[in-house]
């Protein structure tokens, strides 16, 4: 069954946009709706609608794999990242000044409607306590910063993801590769959060809520610079890691993780192109912001 899923994943990967496609999109010689998977996006759609449809393509592609038993838990856990992002957006919305925010068109843990109906921070934690994230009903924070709440959400997500991998009962080398990927991903997020919060706050949250979560110290060393630079460098490292691993795991479930990473990167790249063009940015600037593989 895993092999069947991987074959499907190879089929999905073959539909990914290539470097030349991105260049054509940025140059305007080709439009997004000319690509079969994005044909339902209309030129008349407002930016918000276009972005929603782009992420819907990513979700639909992954949802195809979510129907396959044995790997569905992994795929669902990967997609749940979008909901964690939505929860972060909603936290900012309710603690901020209630200006319209964009949500990803995905929900499973809480549901988008329910999430939008929660108007206090405590109600969010309360609702999340009954989900696989197993959030504490009353989290112990050390600062009043919204960033600390967001960091805890991510820590809870990575804890949930590590538990999902542990429960998959796959070959040890596959589990190791997946764990390695998740730790690399978490290391990038850890480096990012320590730019916003102190390392003490991050250590405190990890020790309290996910003591088993580690970071790659070799990767952490290389992630220096501003918050945006850390995310960009992290993305570059993750892409090279994915490209290397894709050759080593062409027929096992680790490939699903890599595919998810590539699909999400494609959606993010298209998002950047759409915004860049909307803002009238130059071709060079847009291209320099894309994560190509």
């Amino acid at each position, binding site marked *: 069954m895993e092999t069947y899923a991987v074959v499907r994943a190879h089929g999905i990967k073959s539909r990914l946009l290539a470097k030349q496609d991105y260049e054509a999109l940025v140059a305007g010689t080709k439009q997004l709706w000319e690509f079969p998977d994005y044909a339902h996006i209309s030129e008349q759609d407002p930016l918000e609608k276009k972005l929603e449809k782009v992420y819907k393509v990513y979700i639909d592609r992954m949802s195809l794999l979510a129907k396959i038993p044995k790997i569905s838990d992994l795929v669902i856990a990967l997609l749940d990242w979008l909901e964690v992002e939505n929860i972060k957006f909603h936290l*900012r919305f309710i603690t901020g000044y209630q*200006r319209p*925010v964009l949500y990803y068109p995905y929900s499973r843990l809480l549901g988008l409607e329910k999430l939008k109906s929660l108007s206090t921070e405590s109600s969010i934690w309360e609702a999340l306590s009954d989900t696989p994230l197993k959030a504490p009903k009353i989290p112990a924070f050390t600062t009043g910063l919204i960033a600390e709440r967001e960091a805890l959400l991510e820590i809870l997500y990575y804890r949930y993801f590590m538990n999902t991998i542990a429960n998959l009962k796959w070959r040890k080398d596959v589990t190791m590769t997946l764990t390695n990927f998740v730790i690399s991903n978490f290391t990038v997020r850890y480096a990012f959060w320590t730019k916003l919060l102190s390392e003490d706050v991050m250590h405190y949250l990890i020790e309290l809520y996910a003591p088993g979560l580690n970071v790659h110290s070799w990767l952490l060393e290389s992630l220096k610079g501003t918050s945006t630079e850390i995310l960009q460098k992290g993305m570059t490292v993750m892409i090279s890691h994915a490209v290397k691993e894709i050759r080593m795991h062409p027929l096992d479930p680790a490939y699903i993780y890599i595919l998810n990473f590539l699909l999400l990167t494609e959606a993010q790249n298209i998002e950047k192109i759409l915004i860049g063009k909307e803002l009238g940015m130059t071709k060079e600037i847009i291209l320099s912001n894309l994560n190509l593989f």
Partner: protein
Amino acid sequence: MFSELRFLPASRGTLQLLRRRLELVQRGKDVLQMRRDQLAKELLTMLDELRKRSEAEKAFLEASRRIAALRVARGEHEFRSITSLVKPPEVVGVTISYQGVPVPQARVAQEPDISKVTDPDYRTAIEELWKAVKSLIEVANMEVAVEKISEQLSYVNRIVNSLEKNIIPLLQDALRRVEERVLEEELEDFVRVKLLTGA
């Protein structure tokens, strides 16, 4: 108003009236000339401030570019959600007086609150943008003030010119005419009295 000057009766009373009116108009013209000079001086001072416009525009473009770059780098979803944490500034309209000229001005009643934004990249970009917007508000205020003062200056100038080129010469003409008539009448009276007394 001044067409009546032609039909004024030639008398000593009219002469007094015209002299008083001329004196008043000349005093008014002097006062307006002084005001004109004052406004012109104020305008010159402001023109120096207006030169800051290009700098303010440049800073604004730079800050906008930085925000746009951040928006592309971090994605629209994150950008919108982070910026929803910023309490927008409050700008109110007030009318203030520049040399007695009422000028509408924009005043920052409340600075934006970015305390909830913890990401240093966003904070720096938002702070820079706000600084640039504030400079633009200052320049815009100055431009409106210059416009209103220029309008006032041109109005005062028109009145001074009208007094100088039109009203004062008319009054002076009328005064001269009435003066001549009064003198003639006085001379006639004098001759008539001499003849009657048989001198």
